[in-house]
C-alpha cells in the first residue's frame, strides 16, 4: 500500500504501543481509513481510558480486516463512534460495535450502513437494543448482492422508521419486507422506501396491525403489496379508531382464506365502513367475525353490503338480516355469499321484510291503482324528482304534489319504525293529492257561482292591466295586488276544503290523517316571533289543521282575527266547492291585507277562541256582511310601526305543493280540464307573463342569480311539452318492472328503433336463489329484408311444402265429434236403439245409454318459437374442400382469385351448402306456411346478445300479429349475432305466451348448442351455471302453464339437454339438413 501523501503526525498523548501497532495495521488500508481513525482517536482520547480506547481501536481493525472492502465500514465506524458514544454507555457501546463487526463478517456494505445509521437511529432505541436492531437488518441479508442492498436500505431508513415504531414492531416490517423480497427485491425495496412515510400517516396504535395484515398480504398477494402500502393508510383512517385493529385482523384472516382476493376485499370493506356511521363499525365487524368460520368471502361481503342494508333497516334488524344469511351460509357457502352480496332474491326479500321504510318503487303500482280507483282518471304515480327534472316550476324533492295528470310522491318514507305507519303516510299523501283531482281543485271556473258565498269576485276590479288571463285561476289571482298573499290564502282554504271532504268521504284514512296533522302542528313555528299579518295567516293554517287551541292573538286587536277564522270555519263545516274556496280566500284577503305586517312584543300574545259556536249564528247573517274591511280603530293601534315584508307560512308537509294556476295552465295546454275541450293556443309571450307574475313558480337554486334565464328555461320546457315531444303522463320505469307491455304496430311501416327494456331474474344454482333483476333484455323488432327469400324458399321446397301442408290439414279437428252411448243427448243413436229393442224383446238386460251428442272440438293452441341467433349458427354444415380441382384456375393472379372466390361465394349462397341459421330459417318458413293453414296462434322470436345487461330479443312475428309480407321480410333478416344467454330469452317468451289465452301453450326453443354467454357462469369454461339457469327458466315455463320443448342440432346435445330438460321434452336432430322437414313433423306431434 502506498503511503499517504500527507503527513500524519500522531497525537502527543497516544504513545501507546498497542495503539500504534493498530495504527500501523490500519495504514495498510486505503488512507481515508487512517484519517478517520486519527480524527476519532483525537475525539475519543478524552472520553475513553486507555484500555477502552484500545478495545475500540481493536474493534475497528477487526472490522477492517474482515474482507477486502471492509475498510469502508471501519472508516464509518471510526467516523460515528464519537456520536454513538454520546448515546451509549461504554458497555453497550461495545455490544454495538460487536454487532457491527458481526455484520461486517456478512457484508461490509451492511456494516457500513449500520454504522452510518446508528447516530440517528440509536436515540430511538434503548441502549441494550442495538444488537437486536442489527439482527433485524441482518435478517434481510441472504448472501446476495440484492439482499445486501435491501438490508443496507433497511439501516438507512431505520432512523425514520424507528421514530415511528418501537423496535419490537419493526420486526413486523422486516418480516413483511423479507416476505416480499422472496418474490421481488425491487418491490421489497420500494415498499421499504415507502414504509416510513406510510407509518407516519398512520395513528400510532394502527401501525402494528397494519404491518401484520401487510405481512399476510405479502404472503398471499405479494403483487398487491405496493398498492397496499399506498392505499392502506387512507383506507384504514375511515374506520372507527377503536375498531381498526380488529378490522385488520379480520381482513388478515380472510386473506389467509381467500388468497389474492383478500386485499381488494379489504379495500372495498374499508370503503364500505367509511360510508357507515363510526358507531356501528364495531357491531358490523363483530357480525362479520361470526361469518368468518363459514366463509371469509361472506364476512367481507357482509361488511361491503352493510351500509346499503343499514340505510334500509335499523341496527337491530341488521343482526336479524345477518342471522338469516348465516343460516343460509351454513347450508351453502355460495348461497350465503350471494345473500350477503345482495345478489339473491332471498337477501332482498329479508331486507324488505325487516326494513320499516317504504320505497315508492315498491308501492307505486299499488298507489296508482288506488288513486285511479279514487279519481276514476288515469293518474300516474311518479317520484318527485321526475317532476323536478321536467323543470316546469316545481323543485321540491319532498313535498307531494300533482300537476293534474300524475301524482308525485317522495321516493322513500321512513318516518316511523313501522312499515304500516310509513305506508299510511304514503296513503295520506296520495289521498290528499288524489282528493285535489277528485274534488276539482284544478277546475275552478271564474264564472261558476259559489254555493256558500256571494260571488264577489265577479264585481271586483282587476288589480292590473295586461293580457287577458289564460286560465280562470289566473284571472282570479289577477284581482289582487299581493299575489303571494292571495295564493297562500287560497291554498289554505282549498286544502281545508279538500281535507274536510276527504275526512267525510274516506273515514278510513282519518286516523292516519290526524296523526300527520298532529305532527304538522307540533312543527309549526312559534307565533310570537311573527309579524301580525303573518301570524294571522299562520293562525288560519292552525285552524285548518284542527289545532284551534293553538291559535294565539293579541287581545287588543281581537276583532281582526275573529272574522277570518269564522270564514275558514265555514269552509270546514259546509259542503263547499272550489269557487267557495276562492270566495273565502277573497274575503280573507280583504281582512288580512288590511292588517299591517308589523312586529309586536311577545307579551301581548294570548290564546284566542277558535270560532266554534259563533259559526252557526253567523250562517244566518246575510252573506257578504261579515267581510266589511277591518275596523279602522283596531288597525290604528298597529300603525306607526314599520311593516315588514310578508313571508309565506311554512308549508304543511302532508298537503304538499299546491300550484293551481300552473296546473290549470298545463291542463289547458294539453286541452284537458277545459269545458270546451279545445286546447287553447298559448303564445310564448303569454306564458312568459304568467311565469313572471305567478307566485307559485319556483326555480332551482342554481338559477337563482339569473331569473331571466330560469324563466326562459322553463318556458322552453313548457313549450316542449306543449309540442307533445314529452308526454308527461307517460310512466317511465313502469315497463321496467318486468311486466310485458305489447306495443308493436302490425303495420310495421316505421320500426321502433328504440328497444324496450325488460328486467329478469337469473337463477344461481350455487346460491339456490334468484339474482334479482340480473339481466336486461332488449326487445327489438327485426328489420325487414327482402320478401324474395321467403318465396324462394317456398318454391325451392315446393314438394316439402305440399307434404307438410297436407299433414297439417289432417291435424285440423273435425268440427264436431259424435259421442255415442250417452244417457242423454241430442238424438237417439239409432244403432243403440235397435239393439235396445232387440235385447228387450229377447228379455236380455238392456242398456239405456241410447243417445249421442256432437261435441265441438276447437283447436286452441298458441306456440312460440325461440330461435338461437348466436354467432355459432354461422357455421356451415358441409365444410367444403377449400381447394378443389379448380384451384389451378388461377395462377397467383389475385384478380383471378377474387373472381373465383366471388363465384364460389355466390354459388355457396345459392347452393345447398348452408349454414345452421339458413336451415333454421328454412324450417321457420315451412312451419309458418303450415301454421297459417291450420290456424294456430304463433309467434317467432330470435335471441342473442352479449353479457347480462344486453340480452337481445328480436321479434320476428308477435303472437297477435297477423301474418304479412312484413313478416316474410323479417324472416329474411334472421342472421347470426352473438352469444346464447337462453334464460332471459325464455323468460321473456313465457311472458308473451302467458298473454295468449289458449288452452295449449307451447314454447319451442331451437338452438345449435349449449347456452353460453359472457358472465353466464363463473368463467368461460363453466357450463353448469348456464345450464341450470336455462333449466330453471324452462321449469318456470311449465309452472306458468307453458309446455317447453328444446330442439338442438348439436350432436353433443344429448349430454346437457338431458340435464337441462330432464322430464321436459327435447330432441336432438342428428341430421341437421333434415331440420326443415323435421320441425313441422315435430310440431304436429307436439300438438296432436
Amino acid at each position, binding site marked *: 500500500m502506498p503511503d499517504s501523501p500527507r503527513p500524519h503526525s500522531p497525537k502527543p498523548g497516544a504513545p501507546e504501543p498497542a495503539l500504534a501497532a493498530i495504527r500501523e495495521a490500519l495504514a495498510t488500508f486505503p488512507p481515508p481509513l487512517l484519517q478517520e481513525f486519527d480524527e476519532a482517536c483525537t475525539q475519543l482520547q478524552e472520553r475513553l481510558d486507555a484500555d477502552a480506547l484500545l478495545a475500540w481501536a481493536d474493534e475497528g481493525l477487526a472490522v477492517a480486516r474482515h474482507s477486502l472492502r471492509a475498510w469502508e465500514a471501519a472508516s464509518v465506524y471510526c467516523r460515528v463512534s464519537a456520536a454513538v458514544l454520546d448515546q451509549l454507555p461504554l458497555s453497550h457501546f461495545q455490544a454495538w460495535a460487536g454487532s457491527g463487526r458481526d455484520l461486517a463478517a456478512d457484508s461490509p456494505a451492511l456494516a457500513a450502513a449500520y454504522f452510518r445509521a446508528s447516530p440517528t437511529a440509536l436515540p430511538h432505541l434503548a441502549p441494550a437494543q442495538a444488537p437486536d436492531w442489527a439482527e433485524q437488518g441482518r435478517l434481510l441479508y441472504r448472501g446476495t448482492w440484492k439482499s445486501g442492498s435491501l438490508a443496507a436500505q433497511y439501516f438507512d431508513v431505520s432512523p425514520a422508521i424507528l421514530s415511528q415504531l418501537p423496535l419490537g414492531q419493526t420486526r413486523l416490517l422486516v418480516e413483511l419486507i423479507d416476505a416480499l423480497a422472496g418474490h421481488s427485491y425491487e418491490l421489497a425495496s420500494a415498499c421499504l422506501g415507502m414504509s416510513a412515510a406510510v407509518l407516519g400517516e398512520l395513528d400510532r396504535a394502527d401501525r402494528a396491525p397494519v404491518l401484520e395484515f401487510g405481512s399476510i398480504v405479502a404472503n398471499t398477494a405479494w403483487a398487491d403489496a405496493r398498492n397496499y402500502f399506498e392505499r392502506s393508510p387512507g383506507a384504514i383512517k375511515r374506520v372507527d379508531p377503536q375498531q381498526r385493529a380488529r378490522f385488520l385482523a379480520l381482513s388478515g384472516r380472510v386473506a389467509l382464506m381467500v388468497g389474492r382476493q383478500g386485499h381488494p376485499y379489504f379495500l372495498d370493506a374499508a370503503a364500505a365502513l367509511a360510508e357507515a356511521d363510526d358507531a356501528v363499525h364495531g357491531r358490523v365487524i363483530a357480525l362479520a367475525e361470526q361469518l368468518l368460520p363459514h366463509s371469509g368471502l361472506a364476512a367481507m361481503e357482509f361488511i361491503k353490503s352493510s351500509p346499503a342494508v343499514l340505510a334500509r333497516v335499523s341496527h337491530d334488524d341488521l343482526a336479524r338480516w345477518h342471522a338469516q344469511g348465516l343460516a343460509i351460509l351454513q347450508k351453502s357457502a355460495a348461497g350465503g355469499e350471494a345473500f350477503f352480496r345482495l345478489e339473491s332474491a332471498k337477501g332482498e326479500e329479508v331486507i324488505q321484510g325487516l326494513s320499516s321504510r317504504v320505497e315508492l318503487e315498491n308501492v307505486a*303500482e*299499488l298507489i296508482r*291503482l*288506488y288513486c*285511479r*280507483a*279514487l*279519481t*276514476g282518471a*288515469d293518474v300516474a304515480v311518479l317520484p318527485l324528482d321526475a317532476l323536478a327534472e321536467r323543470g316546469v316550476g316545481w323543485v321540491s324533492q319532498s313535498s307531494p304534489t300533482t300537476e293534474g295528470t300524475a301524482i308525485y310522491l317522495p321516493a322513500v318514507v321512513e318516518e316511523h319504525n313501522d312499515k304500516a305507519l310509513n305506508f299510511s303516510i304514503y*296513503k295520506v299523501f296520495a*289521498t290528499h293529492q288524489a282528493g285535489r283531482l277528485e274534488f276539482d281543485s284544478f277546475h275552478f271556473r271564474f264564472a261558476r257561482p259559489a254555493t256558500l258565498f256571494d260571488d264577489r269576485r265577479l264585481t271586483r276590479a282587476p288589480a292590473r292591466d295586461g293580457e287577458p288571463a289564460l286560465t280562470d285561476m289566473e284571472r282570479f289571482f289577477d284581482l289582487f295586488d299581493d299575489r303571494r298573499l292571495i295564493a297562500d290564502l287560497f291554498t289554505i282554504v282549498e286544502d281545508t276544503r279538500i281535507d274536510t271532504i276527504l275526512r267525510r*268521504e*274516506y*273515514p*278510513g*284514512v*282519518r*286516523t292516519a290523517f290526524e296523526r300527520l296533522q298532529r305532527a304538522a302542528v307540533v312543527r309549526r313555528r312559534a307565533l310570537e316571533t311573527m309579524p301580525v299579518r303573518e301570524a294571522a295567516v299562520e293562525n288560519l293554517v292552525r285552524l285548518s289543521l284542527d289545532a284551534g287551541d293553538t291559535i294565539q292573538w293579541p287581545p287588543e286587536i281581537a276583532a281582526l282575527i275573529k272574522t277570518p277564522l269564522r270564514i275558514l270555519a265555514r269552509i270546514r263545516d259546509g259542503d263547499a266547492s272550489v269557487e267557495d274556496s276562492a270566495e273565502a280566500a277573497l274575503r280573507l284577503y280583504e281582512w288580512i291585507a288590511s292588517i299591517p305586517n308589523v312586529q309586536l312584543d311577545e307579551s301581548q300574545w294570548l290564546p284566542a277562541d277558535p270560532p266554534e259556536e259563533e259559526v252557526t249564528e253567523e250562517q244566518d247573517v246575510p252573506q257578504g256582511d261579515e267581510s266589511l274591511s277591518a275596523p279602522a280603530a283596531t288597525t290604528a293601534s298597529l300603525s306607526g310601526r314599520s311593516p315588514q315584508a310578508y313571508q309565506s307560512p311554512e308549508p304543511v308537509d302532508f298537503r304538499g305543493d299546491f300550484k293551481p294556476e300552473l296546473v290549470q295552465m298545463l291542463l289547458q295546454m294539453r286541452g284537458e280540464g277545459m269545458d270546451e275541450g279545445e286546447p287553447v293556443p298559448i303564445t310564448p309571450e303569454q306564458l312568459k307573463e304568467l311565469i313572471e307574475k305567478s307566485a307559485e313558480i319556483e326555480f332551482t337554486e342554481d338559477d337563482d342569480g339569473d331569473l331571466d334565464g330560469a324563466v326562459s328555461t322553463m318556458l322552453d320546457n313548457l313549450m316542449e311539452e306543449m309540442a307533445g315531444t314529452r308526454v308527461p303522463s307517460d310512466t317511465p320505469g313502469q315497463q321496467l318492472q318486468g311486466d310485458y307491455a305489447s306495443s308493436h304496430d302490425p303495420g310495421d311501416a316505421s320500426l321502433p328503433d328504440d328497444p324496450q327494456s325488460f328486467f329478469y331474474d337469473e337463477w344461481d344454482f350455487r346460491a339456490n336463489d334468484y339474482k334479482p333483476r340480473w339481466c336486461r333484455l332488449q326487445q327489438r323488432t327485426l328489420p325487414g329484408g327482402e320478401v324474395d327469400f321467403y318465396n324462394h324458399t317456398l318454391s325451392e321446397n315446393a314438394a316439402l311444402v305440399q307434404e307438410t301442408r297436407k299433414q297439417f290439414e289432417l291435424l285440423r279437428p273435425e268440427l264436431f265429434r259424435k259421442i255415442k252411448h250417452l244417457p242423454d243427448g*241430442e*238424438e*237417439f243413436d239409432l244403432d243403440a*236403439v235397435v239393439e*235396445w229393442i232387440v235385447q228387450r224383446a229377447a228379455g236380455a238386460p238392456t242398456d*239405456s245409454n*241410447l243417445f249421442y*251428442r*256432437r*261435441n*265441438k272440438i276447437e283447436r286452441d293452441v298458441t306456440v312460440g318459437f325461440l330461435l338461437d341467433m348466436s354467432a355459432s349458427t354461422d357455421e356451415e354444415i358441409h365444410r367444403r374442400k377449400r381447394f378443389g380441382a379448380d384451384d389451378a384456375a388461377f395462377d397467383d393472379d389475385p384478380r383471378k382469385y377474387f373472381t373465383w372466390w366471388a363465384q364460389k361465394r355466390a354459388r355457396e349462397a345459392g347452393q345447398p351448402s348452408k349454414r345452421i341459421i339458413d336451415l333454421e330459417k328454412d324450417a321457420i318458413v315451412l312451419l309458418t306456411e303450415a301454421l297459417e293453414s291450420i290456424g294456430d296462434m304463433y309467434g317467432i322470436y330470435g335471441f342473442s346478445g352479449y353479457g347480462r345487461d344486453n340480452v337481445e330479443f328480436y321479434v320476428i312475428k308477435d303472437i297477435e300479429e297477423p301474418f304479412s309480407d312484413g313478416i316474410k321480410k323479417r324472416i329474411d333478416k334472421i342472421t347470426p349475432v352473438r352469444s346464447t344467454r337462453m334464460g332471459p330469452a325464455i323468460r321473456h317468451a313465457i311472458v308473451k305466451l302467458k298473454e295468449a*289465452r289458449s288452452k295449449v301453450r307451447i314454447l319451442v326453443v331451437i338452438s345449435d348448442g349449449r347456452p353460453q354467454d359472457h358472465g353466464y357462469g363463473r368463467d368461460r369454461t363453466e357450463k353448469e351455471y348456464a345450464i341450470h339457469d336455462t333449466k330453471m327458466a324452462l321449469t318456470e315455463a311449465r309452472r306458468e302453464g307453458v309446455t317447453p320443448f328444446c330442439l338442438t342440432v348439436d350432436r353433443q346435445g344429448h349430454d346437457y339437454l338431458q340435464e337441462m330438460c330432464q322430464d321436459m321434452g327435447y330432441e336432438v336432430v342428428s341430421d341437421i339438413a333434415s331440420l326443415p322437414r323435421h320441425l313441422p313433423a315435430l310440431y304436429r306431434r307436439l300438438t296432436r
Partner: protein
Amino acid sequence: MTSQTEAPITEYRSWAVEEFRFQEEPYYVPVGDEVELFRAAWNSKIPVLLKGPTGCGKTRFVEYMAFHLNRPVVVSRDGRKEIMQESSLPLVTVACHEDLTASDLVGRYLLEGQETVWIDGPLTRAVKAGAICYLDEVVEARKDTTVLIHPLTDHRRILPVEKKSQLLQARDGFLLVISFNPGYQSALKDLKQSTRQRFVAIEFDYPPREIEAEIVQHESGLDAETALRLAKMAEKVRHLREHGLSEGASTRLLIYAGSLIRQGIAPRRACQIAIVWSLTDDAEIQRSVEEVIASIFE
C-alpha cells in the same frame, strides 16, 4: 236475494217450467226509462237484448217486467167465457252454457216403455204458454240455437220443431229476451250481426250511487249510511275496470257484503271476502282495492 220480511221457506215448491210466475213483486228500482222501453217492446212484440255487466240487475229486471206485464186471457166460468187480465206473465229462464244445443231448447224424444215420448224443451213451452223466455248469456250457447231464434224473433214468431215436423206459432205474450255481457267474452264469442239486429238493445250499467245504495239497503237490510258507503266503494272500485279488473264490483256482490255486515261481520272483512277476493286473484290489485275499502270503512 229475497226481502228479509218474507216468510221462511220450509218446504220446496215446484212448478212446471212455463207456469212459474211471481206471486210478489220482485224488487227492482228503475234507473232510467228501461221499464217503459221494455213494455213498449213487449207490446210491439219486439224481442229485447239486455246488455250489461254481470250482477247489475238484468235478470231481476226481467223478473220485474214479467210480474208487471199482463195480457187478456179467456177464462171459462159457469159456462160463460170471460176475458180477464192476467196478473202477470210466466217467465222461463234458461241459463245458457257452451254445450247448450238447439234440441236442449226445443225438446227431444225420450224412451218410455215401448215407445218414444216427445218432451218439450223450455223454449217450446214458453212459445206455447206465451211466456217471456229469457236466455241468459246467450252467446255461450251453441251456434245452432240461432236457427231457432231467428224465426221466433221476426214477424213470423214461429218455432220450427224439426223432429216433429211442426211449426209452432207463438201465443200472445211470448217474448224472447236475451242477455249479453259485452265485457268479458272474448272476441270469438260476440253475437253475430244477423242475430243482434233482430233485437232492440237496452243497455244496463251499475246504478248511480244513491240508487245502488237504496238497492243494497233494501236487499241486505243494511242501514242507509253503510249502504251508501258500500255504493261509494263500488263506484271507486269500478274505476279500476280495464285497469287490472275485468269487471267492477257488481251490485250483487255489494248486497252480499251488505248482508254479511248486517250479520255482524266487520265491514272491512266483509268487503274483503265478498268483493276483493271474488273480484280478482292478483295480489297487487287485491291490495289496491283493500286500500280503497280501508279508506272508506274505518
